Each structure stands twice: as structure tokens, then as C-alpha cells.
């Protein structure tokens, strides 16, 4: 008797057995349904987080080097030392631009928060991005109207700004943004350009930003005239060389004596990615544990009900054996029955998780890719097979004479 025959027959038997015990099967399946919903929601949250992160990282640009006083993710002690370092300035950035052979663009950036107002309207907590004329290229931004900061805007620290689409919608719903005068922390700025809409990611909204010359920023908005020097390099393959050259240049500019440690840090996205991987990994591990736990509990339920089912059908097993069913046949029959319950539960679980994912997606990134559906179904079948094995094995090994005698 071939396996395909056997499987088909087993599916029919399983189906009729489950139909006879609808209520019982449903209740047993509940544990697995909950488990699968957890698996899927977990997975879709992680999947969503991943795509979101990729998008964010792509926005930063893989080929940017950030020269800053602090190293990203260096821990507390180095940070304390770094606080006393000399700040980086726009002049340093200009020097780097002049001396570097690997850079295609060098900019200086600083960031802050401010209140933007126009006539009676006001927006608080707006991201103030202090940039230079190169920053649009470096940050991969494009404009939907007007122009970006010019070199002379930066040079003379002019009170001009480029604003994000969210602010435009707020203040200029009927157009006419470019050329208007708005106020940033009660200081007048002229709008010279409007950024293209980007859409929010990770809870921050890049459309809610105002870009001003970095020189204006360091003069008016902060007591620490410290900037990040952003170096966009020509070719990602030359990253290491570029970094080495940059280091040399900075040591020279900042007059770091030979043998002394750098008084700056060169950051790059790698650090961010590996940091994210660590966090993502631990989220996944915790999620996996919780999920595993709920599936385990569900699996015990399946095992229990399969033992009951085997005991109830001892006579049937005896009959089948007398007529020529082999151990394998009986084993497969009960494994299929257990797997049918869990597969059904898996499908139901997915049907429940799907709309939940859509709802979650409104608040944070979540998606249910095909591979996740595949994994959820595979996991549910596997749970059935694993937890059904012991009962099925007991059935398979039954002595036909004993089994036939049972009531």
C-alpha cells in the first residue's frame, strides 16, 4: 500500500473523526489558534520593523561617514571623556572638503527642536535641521518647490529656511509658501524651498522639519556650536581608505600629536545596523520564547485529546489491524488526525491575525509576508505531528487481539 493512498484515506478518517467531535476539536484547537496568532503577530511586527529600519537606513545613506565628538554606541565611559573634547566646526568641515580625495560632498549638520509659527498658527517640537549647501545631496533630499540653501546663505548665516511638507500643509494650505516669512522661535525666516513628502518612519516624521543654515543655527539656537561633519564618499568600496584618509586629515586639522588618541569619532551606518540587529535579535528571542510557550501548551492539549481519541477508538484500531493495517498505517492515521486539527487551527489563527496586523499597521509598521504565512502553517503542522506522535505510537503498537476485545 503506497503512502499517498494511505495519506488520502487518513485525511478522510481524520475528517470524519473530527466532525463527530466538533466541539471537542474546536476547544482543543483553541490553544493552537492562540499560539499561531502570537507567532504571526510577533513575526509581522518584526518583519515590519525590519522594512521600516531598512528604509530609514537607506535614507541616511550607506556611503556617509559622520565625524562627531562621540562614537555611536560606545558606552558611558568614553562618552564622558568625549564631552570634554573640542567641538567640531564648520571650518573643520571646509578643511576636510579641501583636503579629502575620496569625498564627493562634505557638509556640516546639527539638530535641534523649535517652535515654528506663521500668523496665528503655531507648530511646536519641530525638528530643526541645521545644514549646509551640500546637505541635500548628502541626505538624499529633493525639493518640490523653491531652492535649497546656497553657499552664500550658509556663509552669511542668512535667516532663510526650507520646510517640510507637513509644515506647508499646516501653514500654507492654499499655496504660496515660498517667499513667505515664518518665525522659528520668534525669529523671522524666509521660506526659500519646500521638501518633497517622505512619510513617517519609526514614529518620527521627516516632513515635520525646518532646514536652516548651520551657521545661523550655531549663532542663534545653541550655546554649543558643535556640528557633525558628514562626508559622502565616492565609492563604497573605498570606505576603509576614505576613513583612514579622513582620520589623517582630522588629526592634522585638530593638531592631535602623534601617539595621542583621536579626539573625535568617525561613525558610519554599520554601527547602527549592528546595534539594530542586537535589539531585533533580543526582541525575536523573547517573542520566540512566549510563542513557543503558548504552542507548547496548545500541543499538550492536542496530545491529551489524541490519547482520548486513541482510547475511544481502540476497537476501530483492532478492526483495522485485523483487516491488514500495518503499524505505519495506524501511526500515519493518527498523526494526520492531530495535524489536521493543528493545521485547521493554524489557518484560523492566520485568519484572525491578518486583520489585527492591518490594524496594527496604522500605528506602527507591521506586515504579513508570504514566508510568515508559510512558517505559521509549517509550525502548526509540526506541532500536530510532534504532540500527536506519542498517542499515535501507542495506537500503532496495539495488540490486535486485545484491541478487538475492548468495548
Amino acid at each position, binding site marked *: *500500500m*503506497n503512502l499517498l*493512498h494511505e495519506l488520502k*484515506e487518513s485525511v478522510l478518517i481524520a475528517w*470524519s*473523526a473530527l466532525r*463527530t467531535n466538533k466541539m471537542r476539536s474546536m476547544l482543543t484547537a483553541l490553544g493552537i489558534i492562540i499560539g499561531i496568532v502570537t507567532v504571526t503577530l510577533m513575526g509581522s511586527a518584526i518583519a515590519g520593523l525590519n522594512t521600516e529600519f531598512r528604509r530609514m537606513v537607506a535614507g541616511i545613506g550607506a556611503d556617509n561617514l559622520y565625524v562627531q565628538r562621540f562614537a555611536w554606541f560606545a558606552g558611558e565611559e568614553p562618552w564622558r571623556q568625549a564631552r570634554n573634547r573640542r567641538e567640531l566646526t564648520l571650518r573643520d568641515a571646509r578643511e576636510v572638503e579641501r583636503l579629502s580625495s575620496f569625498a564627493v560632498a562634505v557638509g556640516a549638520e546639527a539638530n535641534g527642536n523649535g517652535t515654528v509659527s506663521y500668523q496665528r498658527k503655531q507648530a511646536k517640537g519641530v525638528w530643526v535641521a541645521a545644514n549646509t549647501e551640500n546637505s541635500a545631496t548628502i541626505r538624499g533630499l529633493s525639493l518640490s518647490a523653491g531652492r535649497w540653501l546656497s553657499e552664500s546663505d550658509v556663509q552669511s548665516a542668512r535667516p532663510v529656511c526650507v520646510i517640510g511638507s507637513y509644515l506647508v500643509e499646516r501653514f500654507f494650505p492654499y499655496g504660496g509658501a515660498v517667499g513667505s516669512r515664518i518665525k522659528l522661535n520668534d525669529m523671522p525666516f524666509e521660506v526659500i524651498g519646500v521638501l518633497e513628502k517622505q512619510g513617517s518612519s519609526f514614529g518620527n516624521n521627516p516632513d515635520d522639519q525646518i532646514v536652516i543654515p548651520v551657521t545661523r543655527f550655531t549663532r542663534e539656537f545653541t550655546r554649543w556650536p558643535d556640528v557633525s561633519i558628514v562626508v559622502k564618499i565616492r565609492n563604497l568600496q573605498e570606505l576603509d581608505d576614505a576613513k583612514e584618509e579622513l582620520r589623517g586629515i582630522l588629526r592634522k586639522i585638530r593638531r592631535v600629536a602623534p601617539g595621542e588618541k583621536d579626539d573625535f569619532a568617525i561613525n558610519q551606518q554599520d554601527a547602527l545596523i549592528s546595534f539594530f540587529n542586537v535589539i531585533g535579535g533580543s526582541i525575536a528571542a523573547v517573542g520566540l520564547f512566549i510563542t513557543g510557550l503558548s504552542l507548547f501548551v496548545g500541543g499538550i492539549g492536542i496530545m491529551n485529546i489524541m490519547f482520548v481519541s486513541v482510547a475511544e477508538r481502540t*476497537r*476501530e484500531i*483492532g*478492526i*483495522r*489491524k*485485523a*483487516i*491488514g*493495517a*500495518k*503499524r*505505519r*498505517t495506524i501511526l500515519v492515521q493518527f498523526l494526520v488526525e492531530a495535524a489536521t486539527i493543528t493545521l485547521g487551527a493554524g489557518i484560523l489563527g492566520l485568519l484572525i491575525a491578518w486583520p489585527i496586523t492591518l490594524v496594527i499597521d496604522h500605528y506602527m509598521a507591521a506586515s504579513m509576508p508570504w514566508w510568515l504565512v508559510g512558517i505559521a502553517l509549517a509550525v502548526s503542522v509540526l506541532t500536530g505531528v510532534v504532540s500527536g506522535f506519542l498517542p499515535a505510537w501507542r495506537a500503532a503498537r496495539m*495488540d*490486535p*487481539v486485545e484491541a*478487538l476485545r475492548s468495548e
Partner: protein
Amino acid sequence: MSLIQIHDLTRRYVMGTETVHALRGVSLSIERGEYLAIMGPSGSGKSTLMNLLGCLDTPSSGYYELNGVNVAHMDDNSLAEIRNREIGFVFQSFNLLPRSDSLHNVELPLIYSGVSASERREKAMQALVNVGLGERTHHKPNELSGGQRQRVAIARALVNNPSIVLADEPTGNLDSRTGEEILGLFETLSRRGNTIIVVTHEEDVAQHARRIIRIRDGLVAADEINPNPRAALRMQEAVK
């Protein structure tokens, strides 16, 4: 060559410190086409012998050759195959699958021997017609009378063309008239060349067979030819 050849077959049941000797050394040979009754009082070992003959159980010692093959010490799976091919069982309590209709019950042995669906259907149908149940193919066991259930069981026993039909008290759960019907069916099968072994403790039932083996206390007490077997009352509707 005999169909069945057993020599000094024993079967012991060990229960804790006690050992029950259900069979103490039975030797027999049974030819193809025989209609044989195994008689004996309750507890004499008839069912034990039948389980051994039907390869449902293995002997504690002794020799059993079925169709030229020594089956005394085969493993579970090989025995299952032998049961499927060589043996058709008829039980006192019918032992049909309660949730399946007659047709599916009769198809079962064919499913386990891997016969294709269409051939299976055809053969099972024919077997049901042969026992006079051509009209009852989609009835479940609880929609059939006792006699009809037993006929479904007989159709199932015959569908794979086994070497032997083994019946343990086949009339035990039936009234005498219906029992006669079933015995009539056996008679017809026997005339067509089937080998039939009926286990019973009723003299009336045994008298239908052409050879009677009497068991007492796990031993063969007598092995006699029945010179004039009783003809079953032929029920017209029983066999078509």
C-alpha cells in the same frame, strides 16, 4: 500440500505469577476447500486457536505453516500483510466501522492492499451483491439489521479473495433464523470452493460443517468427519 499445517502449537498467558495454558499442544492440518467447525465449551481455547490461525496472535511455541509459509514467528507488519491477503475474519459482534457505510467497510481490505479506487469500488460492490446486499451499499451499520451487518462483514471477509474465512461465533449475536441465513451463506461459499473455519460452542452450528474438531482444555479431543452435514434452511433472499 495442506493449506494449514500446525504442529504442537501452544499459547500461554502469563498473568503476574499465574500462567494460563490456553492451548497445550495442538496439531492439525487443514486442506483447501474444507468447511470445518471448531467446537468446544467456553474457555476451552477456541478463540485462542482462531487468533493463532488468523495470524492475529503468535504462539508461545510450535509450528504454523500457512500456504507453505512459516508464520509462527513473523513480525507485526508481515502478519498484517498475511491477514490482509490470506484471511477473512467474521466476528460474533460484526466489528464493522460504525461511521462508515457498507461499501466503505467492504472496501477497507482493498485500501490496505493498495487497490485503485475504481477497482476497489467495483470489487466491493460485487462482494455486497454476492451476499445479497446490493441495495444497502450506503447504509451505515446502525441502519442495518444484525443479519445484514453480519453479511456486510462476510462481504468484507471475502472481498480480497482470501485463502481462509475464519468465523468466531458468527451466529452468536443473531436469532436462530438469521443465524441459519448466515450458515446458508457459508454453505454456498463452501460449495464455490472457499475454505471456511467456524468456531462455535453450539452443536447445531457445528453440524453444518463437513469436519468437526472438538477442543477441550486446550487440546484436540476429537477430529471427526461429519458424514451428513445439516443443510441450512435456504433463504431465498439470503443468497442471490
